């Protein structure tokens, strides 16, 4: 199968007076796994449905590969979509479900049966061909839905909350399976999810969306290490946010005077005198009895591989840090010193 790229130019969508998606540009490279991530109502599903052809665009163009598919029906776009509820036809057998697309293309019955058997073997469900979807488990149904989509050899596979219908244990397992499938099949995958862990595990790149706009686009590493806005910082991973004033900026490093933690340095560039905010990941805040920046411990929560401390800084800001196992946990109510390793604070642009 040959993967195709997907390009959105100025694509927007409004429902009546409500603008669900503001004009967006986005390029999904052929063969990459890109996830649209965001809270409910941010427009991510609308974007996916517009790419799929299930929703008309209010403005802009969509290209799959080099072809302008904006006005094409869903089956002429070289895309295949897998729905959150899998949408397996309940009155058809597993085999008939998988072969349905081929039937719509006019393939003969023997050809269809052969292709369907091939895919049943690929997804590990040989022998299940005559069963009805109701007789399958959630994970099995997902595999059938995938087979049904992929049997048509699309250039792009679209996934709407692919793991939303599964319980936590199954979800983790299938996150890895989906990633492996992506590598095996080599297609472009575009997925939609609200679960940041899922996005980070599976994707090559993530587009974080809010209120109908893509707020940041990058690899999971880039987005985690360098979120550009407070929203993105909070949506992926945990963080504390503190305010401060820029004292000086030189050589890509900014010195910021903060009320909560004193002088903090961060990578980036800003005008001296400007007020801005910094994000601190839990692992970017350390206990340092010698530090003049003090905070009071409010709570300590055991999270499995670390202890999460909740603290309040001297100016009232809430802070969070992770203590690796083995470190002594300060008592609740006690005061402790904190320090931020140079450059580990993140400059937020807005």
């Amino acid at each position, binding site marked *: 199968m040959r993967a195709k790229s997907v390009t959105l130019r100025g694509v927007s969508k409004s429902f009546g007076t409500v603008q669900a998606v503001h004009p967006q540009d986005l390029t999904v490279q052929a063969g990459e796994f890109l996830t649209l991530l965001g809270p409910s109502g941010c427009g991510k599903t609308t974007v996916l449905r517009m790419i799929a*052809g*299930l929703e*008309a*665009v*209010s*403005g802009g163009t969509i290209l799959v590969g080099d072809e302008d598919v*904006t*006005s*094409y*029906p*869903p089956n002429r776009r070289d895309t295949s979509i897998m729905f959150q509820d899998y949408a397996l036809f309940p009155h058809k057998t597993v085999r008939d479900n998988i072969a349905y697309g081929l039937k719509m293309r006019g393939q003969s019955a023997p050809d269809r049966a052969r292709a369907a058997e091939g895919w049943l073997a690929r997804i590990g469900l040989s022998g299940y061909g005559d069963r009805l979807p109701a007789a399958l488990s959630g994970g099995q149904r997902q595999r059938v839905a995938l087979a049904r989509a992929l049997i048509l050899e699309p250039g792009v596979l679209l996934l709407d909350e692919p793991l939303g219908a599964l319980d936590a244990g199954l979800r983790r397992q299938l996150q890895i399976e989906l990633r492996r499938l992506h590598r095996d099949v080599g297609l472009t995958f575009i997925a939609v999810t609200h679960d940041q862990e899922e996005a980070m595990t599976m994707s090559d790149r993530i587009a974080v969306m809010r209120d109908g706009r893509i707020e940041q686009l990058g690899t999971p590493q880039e987005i985690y290490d360098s979120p550009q806005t407070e929203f993105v910082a909070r949506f992926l991973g945990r963080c504390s946010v503190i305010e401060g004033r820029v004292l000086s900026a030189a050589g890509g490093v900014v010195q910021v005077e903060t009320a909560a933690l004193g002088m903090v340095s961060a990578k980036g560039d800003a005008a001296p005198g400007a007020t801005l905010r910094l994000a601190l990941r839990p692992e970017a805040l350390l206990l340092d009895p010698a530090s003049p920046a003090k905070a009071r411990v409010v709570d300590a929560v055991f999270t499995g591989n670390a202890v999460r401390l909740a603290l309040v800084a001297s100016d009232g800001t809430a802070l969070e840090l992770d203590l690796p196992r083995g470190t002594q946990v300060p008592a609740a109510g006690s005061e402790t010193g904190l320090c931020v390793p140079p450059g580990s604070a993140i400059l937020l642009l807005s």
Partner: protein
Amino acid sequence: MPRAPVANLWQGILPALVLMAGFFLLPILYTLGLSLTSEGAPGLTLANYQNFMAEATLTDALLRSLILALSVVAIATLIAWPLAWYLAFCVSARRRVLLLFVLVAPFWTSFTIRAFSWQMVLADSGIVGTVMRWVAGPDASLGFLYSLPASIFGLTLFGIMLITLMIYSSMVTIDRRLIEANAVLGGTGWTAFREVVLPLALPGWIIGAALTFIVAVGDYAVPTLLGGGLQPVLAQVMLSVLKGTYDLPMAATLASVLVIVILLCVAPLLLLVRGTRLQS
């Protein structure tokens, strides 16, 4: 704006639209229009309505229809509220389905059959007459049949079923916690009814009463079989005009009078519904 990729299949409504417009809306509008015309006099005229108002037999028939319909609604209401309460609050959920079925099932069948079965029962040759002669001697007669009260009786049974069903549907959606809250605040069963149940079930009653009124004011079978022909209701007059004298403009006028009566009586009820914010 680019063409939508998936067609908006609104065309499915076309057969229904053609049918309803051509065989329901237009005929009724035409009939109303016909009532405003008169042989020999060009243009619109209220002559037919003036003739209607002047003719005692006709206005009497209309009056009887109104009395019939209003009595039916009133009596059925008195019985329907307790019945609905019983079904909604005093019976387990499983039994409810069964009891509802018991109540509703007879009304699945032909109106005509039900009406004539009552005619047989209430006639002197019927079971009631037989029992009365046993009890009170060979000359005893109920004398109930072939009168307006008999028609009211026949239609009331239907009204009870319909209004109970409608009130019940509203009652059953009432959050039990509201009633518990009422009890906690010191209310009794009666106040629970008055303060909590009545306002919330009222929309159901309104719908049931409106539908019952509409059926009763225009019914033909029951007044004919149980009410006799001596004191006809509007429906009976309409039929004799249509099948007997074949006076179409008069039939149109009578039909229009019926429409007007229904609108006048039902519209205020429906406005009440808007006021109580019904969800149908």
